[in-house]
């Protein structure tokens, strides 16, 4: 009999993962600080990390700033036999430390991976056909994720370019924020397309600077995910970008949206990384200034457009 699947996080995505795993007949333990029961016999809930010990695969479905703290607690109950996959679209600190790196540093778990791509909570819960990608060095992790979630309606690819998957995914949050901002400003499809394409070129530069592959940003974790975001799959970044254009203060907009918005911190983190590593990150710099309220809409647009165009 398979070991249960553990899911850390009681938000929409954590609950969707639990439902998806239960759908393929896996026993699921869902951890959150204030557990809410599921109407499914295969899913149990807990607020005690020790209960996750019996699982083999653990999903982390919490916003990136909470991952280090949670891992310190969770790590006390795990060992080298566990596998961990996270679904956060964020990074930690100005060195763009990825969450698989955080898991490796704060827990004894080494078999780690990042699940990314055009996955949305509703689609997962309802079993809508779709695809995703697992970035991991360990084939066992990819197999375990497929075993827990994959089925006739969900194709899960894998790659060993872990850093590429995690950074591409983080960039999608940033570009989506910028798209929301530009859409609210009334910019048309041509402008949005340039923003998306040049944003992804920026992502590629950063991915390569951190040792990842350019192919990854062109795949499910990068453009694949961005297409889903542009098709308005309900990401908070899009709504937050709109709110920022309309002049709503960041705190108010974030609390109104009721979800943690990864794209907000990423802009500043990437800008700092770019400065220190001599990597050009104009989109991140512009969005960091927008988020900090340092520049107006007009200035933001001018900042991006006045860059000289060169060979693509």
């Amino acid at each position, binding site marked *: 009999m398979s070991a249960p699947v553990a899911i850390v996080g009681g938000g929409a995505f954590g609950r969707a993962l639990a439902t998806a795993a239960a759908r393929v007949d896996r026993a699921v333990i869902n951890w959150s600080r204030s557990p809410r029961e599921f109407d499914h016999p295969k899913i149990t809930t807990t607020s005690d990390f020790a209960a996750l010990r019996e699982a083999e695969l653990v999903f982390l479905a919490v916003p990136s700033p909470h991952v280090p703290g949670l891992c310190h607690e969770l790590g006390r109950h795990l*060992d080298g036999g566990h596998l961990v996959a996270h679904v956060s679209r964020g990074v930690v600190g100005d060195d763009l430390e990825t969450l698989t790196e955080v898991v490796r*540093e704060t827990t*004894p778990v080494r078999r780690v991976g990042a699940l990314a791509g055009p996955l949305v909570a509703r689609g997962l819960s309802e079993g809508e056909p779709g695809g995703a990608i697992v970035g991991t060095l*360990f084939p066992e992790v990819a197999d375990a994720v497929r075993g827990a979630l994959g089925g006739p309606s969900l194709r899960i690819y894998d790659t060993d370019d872990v850093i590429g998957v995690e950074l591409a995914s983080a960039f999608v949050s940033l570009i989506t924020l910028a798209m929301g901002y530009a859409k609210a400003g009334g910019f048309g499809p041509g402008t949005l397309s340039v923003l998306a394409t040049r944003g992804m070129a920026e992502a590629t530069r950063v991915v390569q600077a951190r040792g990842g592959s350019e192919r990854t940003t062109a795949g499910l974790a990068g453009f694949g995910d961005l297409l889903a975001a542009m098709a308005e799959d309900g990401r908070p970044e899009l709504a937050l970008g709109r709110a920022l254009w309309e002049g709503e203060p960041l705190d108010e907009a974030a609390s109104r949206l009721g979800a943690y918005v990864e794209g907000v911190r990423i802009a500043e983190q990437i800008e700092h990384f770019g400065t*220190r*590593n001599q990597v050009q990150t104009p989109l991140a710099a512009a969005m960091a200034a927008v988020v900090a309220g340092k520049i107006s809409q007009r200035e933001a647009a001018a900042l991006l457009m006045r860059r000289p165009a060169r060979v693509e």
Partner: protein
Amino acid sequence: MLATLAMSLLPKRPLHLPRLRTYVPEPSDPKIFWFNSERSDILQDVVRRIMERYEADDAIELVIGDAAYHEIRRLEHRTDEAGRKGLEYWRGVIRRVGRMSSEGKHETLREISMRMAKDVAGNFDPRVYKFAARAVPGLLTGVMNPSNLMRNVLDSGTRLDELVSVEGPVEKLRALQRKGTMLLLPTHSSNLDSLAIAWVLFREALAPVVYGAGKNLFTNPIISFFMHNLGAYRVDRRVRARLYKDVLKAYSSIMVERGYHSLFFPGGTRSRSGAIEQRLKLGLAGTGVEAFARNRARGVNRPVFFVPATINYALVLEAETLVEDHLKEAGRARYIIEDDEFSRLERWIAFFKRVQSAESACVIRFGEPLDPFCNPVDEDGRSMAPDGRVLDPGSYVSRRGTATVDGARDAAYTRDLGRAIAKAYVKETVVMATQLVAHVLFRRLCRATPGLDLFARLRHRGDIAVPMDELVADVAQTRDGLRKLELEGRVHLSAAIRRAEPDQIITRALDAWSGYHQKPIARVLGGSVIAEDPNLLLYYQNRLRLFAPEIAGSHPGDRQAALEIAAMEGAR
């Protein structure tokens, strides 16, 4: 001239000393003293493992065909007798393999694997070990002063004690060597590295290690004699056959499984740029993970410890050739340099003359040992979790409670380990005076040439003059930055840098360079220091490349220059 003549008269194949009676190791002897009695079993194990790997006839035919193809290509230009015979053998194999019965294919694979394994396997002669341990320091010192060679040989290397210093958890390593197998993973900047490490292991009462040495090092008959009789195994990088790589990996893994402490240079080759190696392939060192898993899968609980170490030289014997190679685009692919300073006696003499006057010309710093899964280990060799719990390392190679051997999984652990070792290299770097002064001068060069690419900058030979008082101030400020990093546990400073005044640090560096490197790197003229050789400045300063932005001065030009230095290519 005489030395060349003497060398030419020495035999080309490694010599073994005749043995009148069998050496029986003492129970307290290091594991390697048992090597000769196990050698034949080890070779059989290697062949058995190859036969397990290629069970199917198709797979055997393919791997034999691949070996024959690569060997024929390698040998067809050789004109010597051995080359001709080899070519004949492989042509015969390729003619026959298609028509062979299943049994014939198995037998041929067994035969080829054994030939390769015998070529790889080393030898260990305790008499040579005991002699070398006494004589090597004297021989090295003797190179400096040939008229006193005999006295130096007998003098047991007191001079070398002062030249090579050791830092790090030596006591802990001694304890761990008794509890498991130790894999020593040093940085690699010079062919002297293996000699320096071997000497330090002996001096610190650490067990000797086996290691794979490039076959090119065996061309010098004296070095070959010592290497061959001290457990080194031969790695012939010219042999491209997949089977040869399998044999090497199997040999290395079996040695670790059997508890032979080993040494690997995970960077693969000497750092051409002078930078701390950051892209580690690990190569054969990865067999440490496989060896641990194999032992666990058959119920043997023998821990494996990976010990990162940095070898830090004030002067690098082969610096000129290495940096030249680094800068040549074509040179980057060059793997075996056969005509560098290491093979030229007069360069050795010049080198040792210089280092003799330097205090701690070489600092070897051992890092904290790790288990194969990047966990730190305590004095008892137990793996520790981040929360201080004791972990079972076996859990990493198990699924649902059963330990297994899994090549893909172990390759992934090896990549993780490569990153952990690379991080440790940065932390365990010991900054030397020459590197600090080169960094400050090179930063000035970058500051004076904003926006230029590296190669344009390197053309500025002798153009940059820094007034001595400004250089002293820059060195003082940069050292302060390094001290801060040292307090945070992110790097280490050599005793000379820690204690000396900035002007003394500059003098030490200039003195060390002048007289060894053929062209002056920097010289004092009219109260200023002139940057004469940007290539070598680049080489020595590259060791500080990763720290550049944090140790830059407050001058805006300095900060920009530091950012440009940090972003330079130079991991190899």
